């Protein structure tokens, strides 16, 4: 028995003219909020990339003035146009923070989650629309605080995105802003996570059982649980560090510190490793937050463009849930070199190896799904297909890091940088591009240009590998990460050629984004409307008018079958929508 009393009446209201503010800025509609998240996150993403392009100059041509930009920056950042080490460290820390917490998470969860999930499950909106608006606002506030911290005396946070204490405890005031910004971002994610879980559990349309949920929705559900239960640890850590910095406590400061030749005034008694535990308790689940929505998008795109069901849908779901659970007990694989005993390092090696199994199963299922299909190659599919080997490289290089012995050599080298960028950049970012090209017609009613898209794809594909593959070799050659000038070491000198390749690829990658940016804005103004269901997809978001009205579905959909019923033998067309479309 289902209560549908509330459905119908909203439609007529939606014609009320809302003023600009309520419609675009203080909207409670999940679609608008999703788009707000998306644009904001893309801008942050590009900003984070720009920071990195300056760093890449310093790495390739250490000590030389940065062209153009160098002349614009203030004395606190550059000396005669050449980057200062303090600026390099700020850029590094802020690049990591911006990309992870203000770029990918808001894009993958805030934007795609918000826009797509209610549509895919056949709901009228998120369960708590006003809470949804508040999460977006908290995200913006946190983001702005982070950006403004560049103006703080001493500049922005400069202790790495990991903010290891005691370094971060004694760092300049930018670190305080980082912590405060972080608390807002955490708060935003917590509110969002609650909203997603309740929405997915409570607001599924009639007939939408758990095993009829599109894989993307599953990935968002698990992601929401990770956010909900992992983020509080960083919140606790941030509170402790704020106390250390502002109230003079010493949670992370051991006794007997001597900083710069002076005995530190701190009471002591704290533990530097406590910060690392709390941070990684969050940050390992966080990396799965970065990848799972991406996997979800890729699964959708692959199913649609192979014209057949995903292979092993159920085992993918089980793997996903298992992966989510396990991600809470592997975090100390980031801490193998803190001197932990053999028993614990064995424990974390084993859990790390175990957690790689569900990833392998999900990836294998996606690959095997190609078998027997009738594969089309629109732009989203190209990005989704490229995701597979790229995530494969990133994931596989996680294995040597997960074993303590090779990690002794590889830890904190460029190999680690290569590993995780393969998962987050050609991995997640490609999945995000796939999602943008895929759902753009849904959000705007216009299709993006295919040729520009293909250009964007091929250039990005080449240069992404051009950036990150050399890093694997640099790491093998023994070059450490976070080095303002790697040439100080003879290992860095020997591998300098790789650095240059990497830098030039990064700048070319930036140029490769121009067709995308143009395409993104120009397509919106196109006269010609896209079809209602351009990909001939089965899932519910394609069963409502485009763009979907306030309240999403003219009448509540009733779901009759699973999400990926393509090429069903005996069916009228090669796709059987989850719900029969009702009159508009």
């Amino acid at each position: 028995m289902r209560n549908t009393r509330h459905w119908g009446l909203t439609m007529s209201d939606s014609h009320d003219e809302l003023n600009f503010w309520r419609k675009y800025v203080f909207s409670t509609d999940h679609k608008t909020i999703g788009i707000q998240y998306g644009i904001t996150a893309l801008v942050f993403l590009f900003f984070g990339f720009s920071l990195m392009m300056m760093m890449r100059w310093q790495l390739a041509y250490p000590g030389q003035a940065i062209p153009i930009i160098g002349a614009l920056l203030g004395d606190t950042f550059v000396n005669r146009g050449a980057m200062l080490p303090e600026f390099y460290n700020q850029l590094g820390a802020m690049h990591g923070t911006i990309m992870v917490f203000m770029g990918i998470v808001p894009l993958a969860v805030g934007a795609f989650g918000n826009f797509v999930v209610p549509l895919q499950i056949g709901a009228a909106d998120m369960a708590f629309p006003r809470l949804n608006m508040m999460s977006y606002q908290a995200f913006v506030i946190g983001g702005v605080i982070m950006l403004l911290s560049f103006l703080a005396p001493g500049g922005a946070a400069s202790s790495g995105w990991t903010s290891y204490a005691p370094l971060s405890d004694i760092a300049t005031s930018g670190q305080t802003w980082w912590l405060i910004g972080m608390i807002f971002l955490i708060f935003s994610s917590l509110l969002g996570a609650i909203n997603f879980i309740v929405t997915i559990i409570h607001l599924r349309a009639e007939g939408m059982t758990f095993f009829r949920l599109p894989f993307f929705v599953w990935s968002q559900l698990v992601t929401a649980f990770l956010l909900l239960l992992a983020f509080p640890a960083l919140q606790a850590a941030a509170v402790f560090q704020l106390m250390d910095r502002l109230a003079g406590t010493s949670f992370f400061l051991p006794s007997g510190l001597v900083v710069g030749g002076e005995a530190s005034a701190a009471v002591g008694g704290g533990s530097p490793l406590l910060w690392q535990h709390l941070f990684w308790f969050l940050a390992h689940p966080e990396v799965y937050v970065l990848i799972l929505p991406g996997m979800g998008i890729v699964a959708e795109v692959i199913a649609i463009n192979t014209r057949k069901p995903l292979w092993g849908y159920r085992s993918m779901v089980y793997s996903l849930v298992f992966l989510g659970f396990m991600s809470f007990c592997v975090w100390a694989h980031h801490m193998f070199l803190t001197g932990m005993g053999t028993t614990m390092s064995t424990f974390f090696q084993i859990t790390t190896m175990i957690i790689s199994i569900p990833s392998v199963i999900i990836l294998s299922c996606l690959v095997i799904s190609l078998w027997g299909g009738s594969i089309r190659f629109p732009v989203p599919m190209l990005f989704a297909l490229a995701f597979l080997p790229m995530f494969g490289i990133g994931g596989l290089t996680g294995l040597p890091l997960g074993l303590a012995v090779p990690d002794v050599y590889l830890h904190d080298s460029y190999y680690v940088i290569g590993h995780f960028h393969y998962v987050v950049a050609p991995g997640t970012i490609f999945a995000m591009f796939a999602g943008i090209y895929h759902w753009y017609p849904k959000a705007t009613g216009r299709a993006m240009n295919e040729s520009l898209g293909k250009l964007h794809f091929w250039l990005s594909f080449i240069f992404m590998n051009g950036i990150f593959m050399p890093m694997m070799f640099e790491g093998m050659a023994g070059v450490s990460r976070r080095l303002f000038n790697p040439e100080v070491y003879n290992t860095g000198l020997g591998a300098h050629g790789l650095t240059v390749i990497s830098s030039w690829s990064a700048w070319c990658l930036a140029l490769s984004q121009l067709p995308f940016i143009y395409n993104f804005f120009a397509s919106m103004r196109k006269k010609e409307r896209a079809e209602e269901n351009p990909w001939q997809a089965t899932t519910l978001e394609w069963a409502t008018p485009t763009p979907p009205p306030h309240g999403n579905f003219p009448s509540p959909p009733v779901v009759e079958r699973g999400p990926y019923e393509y090429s069903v033998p005996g069916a009228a067309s090669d796709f059987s929508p989850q719900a029969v479309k009702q009159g508009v």
Partner: protein
Amino acid sequence: MKDPQYGWWLPPDVSTNGWVVDQLLAIIHWFMLALFVGWGIFIIYCLLRFRAREGHSAVYEPIKAAFSKWLEVGVAVAEGVVLVALAMPAWAAIKNITAEVPENPVIIRAVAEQFKWLFHYSGKDGVFGAIGSEFISTDSPAGVDPDDEAGYDDFWVYGLHIPVDRPVITRLSSKDVIHSFKIPVMRLTQDAIPGLEIAVWYQATDTGKFQVGCAQLCGLGHYEMKADFVIHSPEGYQAWLDEEHAALGFDDE
């Protein structure tokens, strides 16, 4: 000037333990490569054979349910084997590294600070003076109690000198923030954490001059926190020790 020893791949290995690391790196990378190439060929084959075209349509269930169950189980089991085959030898290997230290080691304290490495040698008597952070001063950067006789012949230098073919124990500590003791040619990295003292041991197989680096972000000068790492012949090491000893003002008997 570019040193030909360092290129785009692993630097030379002059340690007794390094081969364990190198061998594991090799095994696991071959394994990764095999998996990657295998799946890669499969993908490319699928993309060619199953591309959309006239007269070709998708098959609803190309791989049967029962068969798929088997494949799933197969994947899981294969991964389980990988776990045991790779994780367990690795464990054995790390045990090897931290196992009981052989006879007759050289013991050196390494004290990290922003942004240099200080190496503290116990001198002729082989005993370190009492250590404490309260003793740290410009005269005694290693923090040795000036009243402790055992510390009279202690000396400290800003480069790491060790003899070849003798196990070396390094006791790592830090005065301020976390640093990381990295010697690529020894395949060795270990964090130096304030408030803790962590020991590592290693043994060189060849003489030469290399570098110690810092692998953990420790502030502005992190990138230049390096020190010389000199492996002497046994005689050369003794000569170096005598020289340092003489520099302290002791007249040798």
